[in-house]
């Protein structure tokens, strides 16, 4: 909101430059975002928070500066001569909706002449971003920016009998606004009406037909108080936000409007040759009682963490125009009607501390005696999984949780149900639902990078996926992994291998090793978005907690990717409860080990798990390691698979002899024979 320094200085005498005043305002109450020099004046752009409607005008800002610097506001000229008859004879006000309009005041000014506004007025309006229209309209705008109260002028002769009714609109009632738009009204909207029709939306915008115009001679001037919620709902419904509604919905000054009307009358008389009729027409059905707030001085000091002398509080109260009385330790403050934000002790704490200055409160660190507690289990699991992913060379990405329904549907888990729809998405359909899988987002990330010439990516994301449920929707914390599989990248020393199915399997096993979860089974996968021959499920007992494999052709084509992709998802939340069981150390044997290799072929379809099982089942306790050191499948072995397995034997009690090792190896060989292997 823009303010003219020259205009502010008309309301308060300050011994300082504009820049200094801006700094003080920022530190004590109102943040000045920008200070702009403009043709001999300085314009402040002030960010006025929603709780301070009293400061949304020049006199309000001046009052703030007066309070900060310990001075008082200068008086404002509001005088005029009342003559030419009684206003009440020309204007009658009836408030039907006293809940929506607490007070309505009016005055009548006759015989005005319009014309261009004086230069000083035009200039000041321009400084705050208003365009000069003509003198009669400019005066009400000028008073709005000076005193903050929105006023509205009607051409009296266009309001039959000067009769004003404040009521809710009829359903379907129509009104042409001063901006020329035509609105259809309903009972949520409070209107100002004449005897037969709406002539304005209260506190939002006047109507076209009765507005002040170049041929206006007599003015009916309105000042009113509209209830903030009613005002806000009406304005929203009409899709309007005006200088008036902006202030009313934050809370207007129910008593200040009278002075604003007087200031306006003063200007009409002085500048437009108007004659102000006798008396203020004042309907005030919903009275605002004076507000008084008590504050305990000792509580103030302990709350602030600063000893504030009683005398200083008294000075600050006076500067803020609060009536203040101290009884033992309790202050009683009378709150002026323009300070709608001061209702409770805490509000007064704020007022006192900010004027004392936040910068004058000494910094301290609290000692909070909380029970020490472990990090949440799920967070520990996330940390561990992330650690493995980073160490394995995968880069973390962060994607939006919104996704398009089509991409989501490709990877939605079985039984996911309908995705949760965003009612007001930022982009339809691309970001219109909450994702049920991380897969589509990861595919998009790979495509984005691929389009920019990057390939051979290894990515991961840890995020939540969302499922509708009765009541609170379900959020599951998922680890997603993705890698594209281009050719190995050549390098003189050692070419870079692309990620493949087995790399994923290794990373997944490592994560569970890290989590201390040993009962993971990797079995045949069923996910349709993965290629049937290159997919696997990650299970614990009957529960499927993840999947991985190569993306099927359909989804790959959907994302327009030229080479295959690997994807994986693990439900970290599902295993978090069992992660990190206690561990104990087992000392390694101090006796030497003996290793023996065995080469053999197995029939097609014999899994390595069975081979391993046969070795483990050979009845040799001294086996400490089984590794697969060679694998060949091809014509040379007649379609059978050729394996070379290295078995390491070691005893914890003595050094094994070659003969013993040979005997163990014989048992292993015998056990494998039962599986139908052919020793080579």
């Amino acid at each position, binding site marked *: 909101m823009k303010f003219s320094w020259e205009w502010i200085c008309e309301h308060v005498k300050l011994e300082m430059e504009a820049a200094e005043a801006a700094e003080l305002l920022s530190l004590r109450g109102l943040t000045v975002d920008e200070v702009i020099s403009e043709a001999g004046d300085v314009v402040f752009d002030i960010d006025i928070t929603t709780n301070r409607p009293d400061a949304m005008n020049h006199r309000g800002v001046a009052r703030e500066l007066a309070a900060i610097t310990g001075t008082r506001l200068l008086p404002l000229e509001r005088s005029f001569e009342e003559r030419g008859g009684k206003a009440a004879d020309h204007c009658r006000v009836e408030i039907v909706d006293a809940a929506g309009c607490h007070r309505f005041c009016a005055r009548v000014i006759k015989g005005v002449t319009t014309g261009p506004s004086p230069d000083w007025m035009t200039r000041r309006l321009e400084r705050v971003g208003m365009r000069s229209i003509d003198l009669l309209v400019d005066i009400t705008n000028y008073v709005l920016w000076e005193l903050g109260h929105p006023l509205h002028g009607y051409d009296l002769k266009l309001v039959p009998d000067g009769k004003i009714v404040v009521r809710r609109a009829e359903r379907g009632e129509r009104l042409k606004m001063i901006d020329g738009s035509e609105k259809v009204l309903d009972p949520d909207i409070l209107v100002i009406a004449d005897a037969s029709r709406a002539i304005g939306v209260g506190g939002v915008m006047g109507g076209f037909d009765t507005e002040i115009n170049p041929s206006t001679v007599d003015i009916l001037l309105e000042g009113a108080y509209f209830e903030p919620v009613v005002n806000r709902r009406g304005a929203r419904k009409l899709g309007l936000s005006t200088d008036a509604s902006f202030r009313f919905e934050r809370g207007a000054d129910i008593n200040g409007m009278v002075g604003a009307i007087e200031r306006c009358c003063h200007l009409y008389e002085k500048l437009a040759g108007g004659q102000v009729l006798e008396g203020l027409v004042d309907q005030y059905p919903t009275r605002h009682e004076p507000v008084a707030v008590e504050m305990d001085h000792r509580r103030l000091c302990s709350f602030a963490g600063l000893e504030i002398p009683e005398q200083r509080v008294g000075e600050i109260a006076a500067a803020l125009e609060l009536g203040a009385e101290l009884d033992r330790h309790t202050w009683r403050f009378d709150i002026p009607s323009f300070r709608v934000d001061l209702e409770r002790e*805490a509000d007064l704490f704020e007022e006192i501390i900010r004027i004392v200055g*936040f910068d004058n409160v000494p910094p*301290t660190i609290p000692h909070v005696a909380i029970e020490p507690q472990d990090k949440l289990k799920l967070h520990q699991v996330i940390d561990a999984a992330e650690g493995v992913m980073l160490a394995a060379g995968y880069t973390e990405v962060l994607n939006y949780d919104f996704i398009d329904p089509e991409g989501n549907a490709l990877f939605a888990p079985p039984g996911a149900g309908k995705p949760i729809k965003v009612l007001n998405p*930022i982009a339809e359909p691309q970001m219109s639902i909450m994702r049920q899988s991380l897969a589509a987002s990861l595919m998009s990330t790979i495509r984005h990078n691929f389009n920019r010439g990057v390939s051979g990516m290894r990515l991961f994301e840890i995020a939540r996926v969302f499922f509708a449920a009765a009541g609170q929707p379900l959020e599951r914390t998922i680890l997603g992994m993705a890698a594209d599989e281009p050719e190995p990248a050549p390098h003189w020393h050692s070419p870079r291998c692309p990620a493949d199915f087995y790399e994923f399997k290794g990373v997944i096993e490592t994560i569970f090793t890290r989590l201390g979860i040993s009962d993971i089974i990797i079995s045949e996968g069923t996910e349709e978005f993965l290629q049937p021959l290159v997919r696997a499920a990650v299970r614990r007992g009957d529960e499927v907690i993840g999947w991985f494999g190569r993306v099927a052709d359909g989804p790959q084509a959907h994302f327009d990717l030229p080479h295959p992709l690997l994807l994986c998802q693990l439900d970290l939340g599902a295993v978090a409860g069992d992660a990190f069981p206690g561990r104990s150390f087992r000392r390694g044997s101090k006796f030497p080990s003996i290793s023996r290799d065995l080469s053999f072929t197995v029939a097609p379809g014999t899994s390595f798990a069975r081979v391993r099982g046969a070795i483990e089942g050979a009845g040799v306790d001294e086996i400490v390691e089984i590794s697969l050191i060679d694998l060949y499948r091809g014509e040379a072995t007649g379609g059978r698979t050729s394996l070379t397995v290295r078995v390491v034997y070691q005893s914890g009690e003595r050094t094994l002899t070659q003969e013993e090792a040979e005997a163990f190896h014989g048992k292993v060989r015998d056990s494998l024979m039962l599986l139908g292997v052919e020793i080579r």
Partner: protein
Amino acid sequence: MNGQLNDIRAQFDADLRAGTTAEALEGLRVKYVGRKRGLVTEAFKHIGDVPPEERGAYGKACNELKQFISDALDAASSELDKAEQEAAPTLDITLPPPLPRIGRRHPVSDMMRRIETIFVELGYAIADGPQIESDFNNFEALNMPPDHPARDEQDTFYLQGGMLLRTHTSPVQIRTMLQQPPPIQIICPGRVYRRDYDITHTPMFFQVEGLVVDRGITFGDLKGTLEYFTHRMFGPQTRTRFRPSFFPFTEPSAEVDISCPFCGGGGCRVCKNSGWIEIMGSGMVDPAVFSNVGIDPDVYTGFAFGMGIDRQVLLLFGIDDQRMLYENDMRMLEQIGGWR
């Protein structure tokens, strides 16, 4: 007889000058000091031909000659090794090595981890809650009833079923206060959502909020804690400024500015010549919020703060478009992603 030894010596000198290969040197060793027919070995054998009174001197001369030849051959041989080594191809230490493959953390979550660590070291617990929230937890409990103008500043995504996407992580504070009695000392990091999409806004972004509730918590405690944080985060030379502001859930409320880390406060493009950069909002918990969660505001006080992570990342790395953070461009992540 000594003349004979001198001849051998002269002959050896000539041979040594001629022979420069390892084989030639080995040949000379055999020829002169070989056990079987080495010339010096043979000369020893003639000691019987020497008159007895000269035998001592002759033997000594023979030994000296043998020693001289052996030393000369050793020296020539090591000379030769050195030359050979110098001529051999050496290790080119400028060759490009294979680089270890190390994953990078996304700069936003890396920044979030840094912030978490600072508060965890101070004894804060990390609290968590749903990203899909109720209007009550996100707004009403925080003293923002329907029709409150402050709701305008947090344009909200609404979901089917009357829920919404949390616009801040404050609902986690509400949930924590509803679940556990004070003292409370938590931070709430996580994803939040607002309906905005332009160069400085993305519809999803990250926040860390904090909450401390206990008897006797003061505004000075708020200041001290956040000053400690800014010193840890931006360096001990950082100055901190608290500006009065307004949030419906705190009273008083303060925006926290730090002296611009780029110009030190002198004014530059980043801080728009103000010397200050706003990094977070904070305040003393509003008594109405305490009442909403069943904590007695006459007994307990507390402070809360909240900061956007994304803006700090943009600031730190000089990125001018927030939307880039969620494009996950590998070239960006490899440049500014976090190492673990």
